[in-house]
C-alpha cells in the first residue's frame, strides 16, 4: 500500500515536473527566438502567465462532445507517454509504468494523440482545423518512418524493446548510443524535428494561413489543456531521447541539462528555417532521415 502511494506520488511529481519543465522550455524557446531576432522577448515564465490567463477565461464555447474531448485526448496521450518513459535511471521514486516492450507501445501512443485531437478539431466545423489536421497527419506519416526505423535499429542492435534495458546497456557500456550507433541517432534526431513541429515543419498550424489550424476554435480552457499537454509531451519526448541515446540521467539536474541540450536542436534549426509545404516535408522525411534509418538497420543487422 505504501509503495503504491509512493508510486502514485511519484507519478504526480513527474507530472508536475514535466509540466514545469516543459512550460519553462517553451518560455525559454520564446526568449531565445526573441534574442536571435534581436528582441528582448517575454520573460521565461511568460508561458505560465499565458496558461494562467487561458485558464482564467470566464467563458468558453464548444461545438460538440468530440470537440470538447479533443484536448482531453491529447492530454491523455501525453500523460500516458510520460508514465511509460522512465525519468531517471534506477529511481525508486519515479517508478513509472515502464515495462518490457514499451518502445512499441510508445510508437503507438505517440501517434494516438494527434488522432484524438484531430477528432476534436474535426467537429468544430472550421475548415481551417480540418486542413491543419490533414497536414498534421500527413507529416506524422512522414516522420514516423525514420523514427520507427531508428527504434527498430535499436531493438535489433540491443535485442530488447524495453527502454530501461537500453538505459542499462548504456550504463554498462559506459557509452551513449548516440556515439555507438550514430546512424540511429541521426535518423531519430531528424524525425524529432518533425515531432516538435517547429519551424520547417510548422505548416500544420500556420497562424495566418490557417488561423492556427487544428486549434482555431479552441480558446480558454481548451487551449490551456492543449498547451500544458504539449509541454508535458515535449518533456516526455526529450526524456525518451535522452534515455535512448544519451544514457539517461542519474539525477534531475543532469536530466534537465541533457534535455535542454537536445531541445536546442529543433529550436535552433527552426529559428533559421523557412517553412516546408506538407508534401515537401513528407518527402524530406522519406529522404535522408529514412536513408539514415535504413543505414541504422543495416548497421544493426550486420555489426
Amino acid at each position, binding site marked *: 500500500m505504501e509503495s503504491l502511494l509512493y508510486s502514485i506520488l511519484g507519478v504526480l511529481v513527474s507530472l508536475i515536473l514535466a509540466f514545469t519543465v516543459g512550460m519553462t522550455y517553451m518560455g525559454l524557446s*520564446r526568449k531565445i527566438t*526573441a534574442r536571435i*531576432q*534581436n*528582441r*528582448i*522577448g*517575454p*520573460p521565461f515564465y*511568460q508561458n505560465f*502567465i*499565458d496558461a*494562467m*490567463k*487561458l485558464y*482564467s*477565461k*470566464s*467563458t*468558453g*464555447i464548444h461545438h460538440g462532445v468530440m470537440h470538447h474531448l479533443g484536448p482531453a485526448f491529447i492530454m491523455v496521450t501525453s500523460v500516458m507517454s510520460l508514465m511509460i518513459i522512465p525519468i531517471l535511471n534506477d529511481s525508486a521514486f519515479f517508478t513509472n509504468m515502464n515495462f518490457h516492450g514499451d518502445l512499441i507501445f510508445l510508437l503507438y501512443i505517440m501517434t494516438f494523440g494527434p488522432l484524438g485531437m484531430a477528432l476534436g478539431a474535426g467537429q468544430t466545423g472550421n475548415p481551417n482545423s480540418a486542413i491543419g489536421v490533414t497536414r498534421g497527419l500527413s507529416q506524422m506519416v512522414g516522420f514516423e518512418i525514420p523514427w520507427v526505423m531508428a527504434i527498430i535499429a535499436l531493438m535489433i542492435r540491443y535485442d530488447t524493446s524495453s527502454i530501461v534495458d537500453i538505459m542499462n546497456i548504456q550504463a554498462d557500456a559506459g557509452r551513449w548510443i548516440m556515439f555507438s550507433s550514430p546512424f540511429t541517432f541521426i535518423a531519430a534526431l531528424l524525425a524529432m524535428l518533425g515531432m516538435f513541429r517547429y519551424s520547417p515543419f510548422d505548416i500544420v498550424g500556420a*497562424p*495566418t494561413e*490557417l*488561423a*492556427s489550424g487544428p*486549434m*482555431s*476554435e*479552441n*480558446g*480558454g480552457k481548451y*487551449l490551456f489543456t492543449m498547451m500544458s499537454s504539449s509541454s508535458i509531451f515535449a518533456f516526455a519526448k526529450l526524456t525518451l531521447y535522452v534515455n535512448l541515446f544519451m544514457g539517461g540521467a542519474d539525477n534531475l539536474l543532469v536530466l534537465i541539462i541533457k534535455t535542454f541540450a537536445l531541445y536546442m536542436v529543433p529550436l535552433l534549426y527552426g529559428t533559421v528555417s523557412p517553412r516546408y509545404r506538407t508534401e515537401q516535408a513528407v518527402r524530406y522525411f522519406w529522404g535522408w532521415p529514412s536513408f539514415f534509418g535504413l543505414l541504422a538497420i543495416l548497421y544493426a543487422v550486420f555489426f
Partner: protein
Amino acid sequence: MINDKNSQKIVDHIHNFARKHSLWVLAYGTGCGAIEIPPTMTSRYDAERLGVRGAATPRQADLLLITGYLTTKTLKRVIRVYEQMQDPKYVIGFGSCTINGGMYYDSYNTINALDRYLPVDVYINGCMPRPEAVIAGFTKLQELITAGKADGAAKYKEKLEWYRKNQKNVIPNWTMPEYNW
C-alpha cells in the same frame, strides 16, 4: 471557501495579473493603422516583452485592435469577431478615425464614433499612432485591467440593445445571429 468574497478577490487579483501580462491580440487590420502593428511587434519595439502576442483567431484572443477607420461593411465583421471572443475581452481603438471619424468624418460609409457600436476600453490617439503610442495604449490597458476597470465586455452585455440599435442603423440587411453570450 472559494465562494468567500475575500478569497475571490485574491483569485481575481491573480487572474487579473495573468490577464494583464498576457494580452493576445487579434489585430483586425481594418484601416491604415494595420501598418503600425508589425513595427510594434518586431525587434524595434518588441511588444512581446509585455506579454502582447498575436492570436490567430477570435476564440483565442483577448484584445481586439481596431486599427483605423471602419467602413460600415467592415463594421459588421468586426462586431462578429468581437462577439466571438471569449470573456474577458478588450477593445483598443486605434487612431483618430475610431474616435471621431478622423479624416473620413464626412464619408458616407465610414462610421465616426466606434464607441457607439463596440465598447472601447482604450483609445490611442493619433493619425497614425506611432508604435510608442500603441505600446502606451497597451500599458494603459494593463493598468485598467489591474484596476479592474477594463469592463467593456460587461458594458456591452448590459447595453446590448442600445449597441444593437446603433449597429442596425448603419448595417442594412442585418443577418447576424443573436449575441449568445
